[in-house]
């Protein structure tokens, strides 16, 4: 007689892990389809519609790319902080404040484009870093959980943007009701409406990935993130690393905000962050904080978001997409754990 037993393996085989990831996505979509079917929709027609309008035309692909880019910035922002064991829930706020600072430069500093654009990028990064500065120092010196502080800063940044865009910085021409005037400079496009923000994001992801593997600092951050006690034991400057990494995290989200305002939208307006900062958390977690992984998961999330927009035009709310992303996260978490298990067939002892 044989009996079956599950055994947990210390490492999940990469092929199994990947297969289970794909399976979890398929299951999530199937679950959503089942619910849609139950509520009287035709899931197959909806699915075909989503696919054809996303991948079927260059317009669809361009829209997709515009969603892809901010998700990379925010995903990288959260991922970088995760590497040192910090939860940056505030990419949303840093994104907003980075956009705000970049807009300030564009509106009030005049000069040639090749000076103003980099200056806006720097302003965006500094803005993002500033927005995470207080939570960072509170965490580094008083051990205040950054989870709460970064989250709370989001609302402040969001309201600040609303106020500026509808008040002091409101478009004086009277053409727009709730935005600033169109920025005099913009990030140039290289394909249709897709601007250079995307390739720069991809380059940053590659650079970060090399950084974590091939630099001494990357190693130290890895140790400090996994066990600060061991990092102190080896004499690493844990606090300086934490501050540096968290500021970098804020800067990445801020740069994303700058690209959004100067490349995609063209004006500063309330809600410009479009929840990218929060979805960035999901992007980073699904990528297990690996910068190259962020590229894949950000793309995937972009497809889902785009699908949501298409579904909206079919009379469904965006909540459908949120539900699907939630399901994917749930199934992926189960799949990641399941990938560690191996089924053993053992011959039961006689007797």
């Amino acid at each position, binding site marked *: 007689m044989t009996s079956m037993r*599950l*055994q*947990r*393996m*210390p*490492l999940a085989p990469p092929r199994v892990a990947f297969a289970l990831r794909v399976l979890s996505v398929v299951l999530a979509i199937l679950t959503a389809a089942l619910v849609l079917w139950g509520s009287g929709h035709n899931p197959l027609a909806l699915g075909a519609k989503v696919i054809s309008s996303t991948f079927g035309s260059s317009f669809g692909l361009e829209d997709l790319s515009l969603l892809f880019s901010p998700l990379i910035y925010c995903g990288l922002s959260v991922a970088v902080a995760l590497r040192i064991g910090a939860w940056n829930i505030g990419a949303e706020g840093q994104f907003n404040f980075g956009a705000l600072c970049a807009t300030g430069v564009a509106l009030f500093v005049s000069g040639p484009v090749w000076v103003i654009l980099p200056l806006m990028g720097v302003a965006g990064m500094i803005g993002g870093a500033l927005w995470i500065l207080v939570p960072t120092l509170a965490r580094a010196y008083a051990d205040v959980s950054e989870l709460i502080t970064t989250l709370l800063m989001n609302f402040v940044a969001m309201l600040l943007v609303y106020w500026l865009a509808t008040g002091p910085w409101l478009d004086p021409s009277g053409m727009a009701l709730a935005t600033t005037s169109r920025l005099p400079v913009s990030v140039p496009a290289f394909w249709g409406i897709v601007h250079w923000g995307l390739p720069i994001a991809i380059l940053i992801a590659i650079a970060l990935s090399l950084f974590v*593997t*091939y*630099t*001494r*600092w*990357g*190693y*130290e951050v*890895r*140790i400090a993130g*996994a*066990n600060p*006690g*061991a*990092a*102190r*034991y*080896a*004499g*690493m400057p844990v606090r300086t690393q934490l501050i540096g990494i968290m500021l970098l995290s804020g800067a990445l989200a801020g740069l994303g905000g700058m690209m959004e305002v100067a490349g995609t939208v063209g004006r500063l307006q309330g809600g410009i962050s479009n929840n990218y900062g929060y979805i960035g958390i999901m992007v980073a977690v699904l990528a297990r904080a690996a910068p190259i992984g962020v590229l894949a998961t950000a793309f995937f999330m972009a497809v889902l978001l785009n699908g949501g927009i298409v579904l909206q035009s079919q009379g469904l709310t965006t909540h459908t997409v949120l539900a699907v992303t939630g399901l994917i996260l749930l199934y992926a978490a189960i799949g990641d754990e399941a990938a560690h*298990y191996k089924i053993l067939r053992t011959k039961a002892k006689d007797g």
Partner: protein
Amino acid sequence: MRDSASVQQRLGLTPGTPPILSLKSVSKYFPGVIANESVDLDVYPGEIHALLGENGAGKSTLMNIVTGIYKMDAGELIVDGRRRDFSSPTDAIEAGIGMVHQHFKLVRAFTVAENIHLGWPETPKRISRNSLETRTAQLATDLGLAVNPKAVVADLSTGEQQRVEILRVLARDAKLLILDEPTAVLTPQEARELFTALRAFTARGNAVIFISHKLEEVLEISDRITVLRNGEKVATEWTKDCTEKSLAQLMVGREIVLTETHKKSAIRVKAAPVLSLSDVSLKGEQDTVLKNISFDLYPGEILGIAGVAGNGQRELTYVISGLSQPSSGKIVLDGEDVTRAGARALAQKGIGHIPEDRLHSGMAPTLSITDNAVLREYGAPPLSRKGWFSPRGAANLAREIASIAEVMVPDFNMPARNLSGGNQQRLVARREMRIAERILIAAYPSRGLDVGAINTMMRYFLELRDSGVAVVLISEELEELLSFSDRIAVMFHGEIMGTCPTDKADAETIGLMMGGTRQEDLP
């Protein structure tokens, strides 16, 4: 094995007396691990039954089943002739099984009387402080365990706290008392008092299960010994028929050579001390944890630090390795003031440190074995050049360290927490020995190792010493200190009670110093 009738007769019981506790083919599985496999165990009234085994042999799991913390996956548990299936620790307590854990479960801010009555169904609903104390005093006399009911637990010595813990368990009518490594926190004198109390307890027809890995005391206190290995019972023997050697062999499962002799270090060349501490104090969060520590450490010696755990040994290692900066005093390494040098600088100057709590301060358990193995040498060529880090260099170094540490690693990308405790210890020890050009600080290096591995590690320490490195060996095993160190310093409440050469030291005087007697006040 002898049939049970003869067991009862040899214990002085009437034939046919049922065991207090009987386990039949008890098995317990965790994912990927067999914690216990078909364990049989009978514990009779009046006996002290020792449970022996290496770390990870399944002692704790088995006792957690007996005390209702875990449910067994197969087998039977019979208490006083009745088959039981405990669904919670409360059930086990009601059945008369009580356990004293290694870490006491007392409320430190409460008095002894309050602790005894806490969470006890028999505590009257309305009761005055006075009657609480009278009841406690009565219990203490009845059960023969002297405690002061009015004393606040935080003010008691570890031995006294343990007595309170035992009294609390016995007050709930325990017939079977389980003690988990009870002497680990006691001085030899306190251990002797405990043994007397245990004998009085079993003389009343009760039983004790005594978990330990100290062979010597197991031989002293128990009537019978059950040895577990890899979750299975290897044997139950009469203590009279056992020797340290036979037990060690049963535990490890192969012939091992206990290091009997050891050559003392060559006559010390009148060298300058490699490290000098003068008047070093360290303030903790509430009180001073190190008080005016002064000593010299010479190249080529092993300085043993004796003392009950928690008397400042950890803080001492932190100060010497630069993890903590002393609040006052001075530390000089080879003529250079290193009081505020910091951990990195001291490691670079050749101080290796095998920390007490390797998993939490010496390793990053979730990271790969490679990352962990290179923790000391990642910053210098060939691993790092101008800020660039070479993963390949790291992998090579990790392989090298694992091979001299004799650790079989199936995959160096595997998280380090998946290594067994013993392998982690070996890896950390080897990593630290590589950088210990001047000093090696080893805090409880034998924890988690089997007898054979302890021997190997001690042999490495002796080799290091003979090559001129100073070794600071912190241990709670007096035996180990007496056989391997050249001098022994004894710590108590953050102070050094005294230092003496090992050949002039004996367990008795060291025990007195461990309990707080200064060397100059010794009889």
